[in-house]
């Protein structure tokens, strides 16, 4: 379980022009839950994610993963960044990229190779191990990044707008892939996106943020049936209703000033 309690982040504190990116943010993600975070651009989504990932120290408040306070990057957590072309190491082959975080775990050569092959196969890239990332398309590179995160065997996966730079068709494929992998590997996912359809389609709950200084505007439950389907789920009136609801929640002007839940 992931708990974020009264997280606050101010950039440039003590300078003449400090910037309060996150004002006061609390959210809980249960085990095996899929929670999306949406908000207007500049809503401190990435800041929030970096604090949760232990990559950025918060100004105050705390993040707990399984009741342990997050101070640095937790061992049970893996990250998938938006910019796959900059998070994969271009001098390593696909399989070396996946093996790299596993080096210190000393699983043995055969076991490592098997794990790499398994995860590559589960993202549909069974044949690409010996290639370099730059020899693959954008969607395939993001699959490699997801495979690397899976091979790390995390309990929770943080994804920062992972499909923002791929085309629509690839994006739909990758969304379904992530849902499928979540079921298969039983991982918790915290997913940052600016795409409301995507958030509603994927999630159990959607956390709507206000513009900076960010607070939680609203948390929306998504009771759509699973497994979800790009066509069937999205043609349900309930989907349309939820997506409109989240949309309005983001656009509501009073959030900018004083929103809280």
């Amino acid at each position, binding site marked *: 379980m992931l708990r974020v309690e009264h997280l606050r982040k101010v950039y440039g504190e003590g300078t003449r022009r400090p910037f309060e990116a996150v004002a006061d943010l609390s959210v809980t993600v249960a085990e095996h839950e899929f929670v999306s975070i949406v908000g207007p651009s500049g809503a401190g989504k990435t800041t929030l994610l*970096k604090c949760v*990932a*232990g*990559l950025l120290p918060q100004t105050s408040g705390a993040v707990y993963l399984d009741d342990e306070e997050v101070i*640095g*990057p937790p*061992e049970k*957590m*893996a*990250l998938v*960044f938006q*910019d796959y072309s*900059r*998070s994969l*190491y*271009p*001098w*390593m082959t696909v399989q070396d990229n996946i093996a*790299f*975080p596993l*080096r*210190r775990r000393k699983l043995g050569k055969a076991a490592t190779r098997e794990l790499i092959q398994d995860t590559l196969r589960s993202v549909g890239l069974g044949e690409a191990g010996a290639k*370099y990332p*730059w*020899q693959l398309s954008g969607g395939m590179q993001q699959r490699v990044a997801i495979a690397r995160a899976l091979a*790390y065997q995390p309990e929770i996966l943080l994804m920062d707008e992972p499909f923002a730079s791929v085309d629509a068709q690839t994006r739909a494929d990758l969304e379904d892939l992530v849902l499928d992998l979540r079921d298969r590997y039983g991982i918790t996912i915290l997913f940052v996106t600016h795409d409301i359809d995507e958030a509603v389609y994927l999630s159990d709950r959607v956390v709507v943020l206000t513009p900076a200084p960010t607070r939680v505007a609203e948390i929306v439950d998504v009771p759509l049936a699973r497994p979800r389907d790009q066509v069937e789920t999205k043609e349900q009136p309930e989907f349309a209703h939820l997506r409109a609801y989240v949309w309005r929640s983001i656009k509501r002007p009073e959030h900018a000033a004083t929103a809280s839940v």
Partner: protein
Amino acid sequence: MRAPRRPLRILGVGLEIAVPIAVLVLWAVLSRDGSSFYFPPLLDIFRTFQETWLFTRVGSDVVPSLARLLTGYAIAVVAAVVIGVALGSSHLLRRMVDPVVQFLRAIPPPVLIPAGILVLGVNSTMKVALIAFVCFWPVLLNTIDGVDGVDPTLRETARSFHIRRRDRLFRVVLPSAAPQIFAGARVSLALAVIMMVVSEMVASTNGIGYFVLQSQRTYAITEMWSGILLLAILGYALNGLFLLVERQVLKWHRGVRAGSV
């Protein structure tokens, strides 16, 4: 960049071979009657070249020259990469050292020969030290730049996956900075040849630079030209060797660049 069409490529390779041959033929024709004392017939130069450098003076002049060149160069590259990584990783350290670096780098290297003779004497150590001094700066500045410029997303990926310090240095920072390190090392290689010759002209009893100056002083003009020819060939060969290594080590870099265009 796309590879040019086949006929164009054949034309390109053909010209690459034909132009140097044409230049040599022109030189041979213009100098054939030996009417100028300073420009002996090219064929005489070739004959002298063969008598002198294949392989009578290899042990006495070429080997000492090359040994000093390579020793000085190697010391410079290793020291510059080590120090460059340290400086590139710390803004504070870099700010402290920068004025000193800029100041030392501004010294025209040959002017250090008199001081070198005083301090180290007229020997190989002095020449190696001077070559190393000259070669140090381009590699240092490029390494600092390269290490400082490692993509933050790559760094954060490494942190979030708990990549060990050693792996972070040797498998993330150094490969990422390698294209710039190589660019610096290539500049240094040319400087090393220059410094080798200059140091041998001022204070030496052997070496190719010494031979050229000695020949000129004794009006052995053909010998002088043969030495110059040898230096040109050596410089060309060293650069070619360097490119061969670079091409191998930075294969991924060419791939990334070709992919992103």
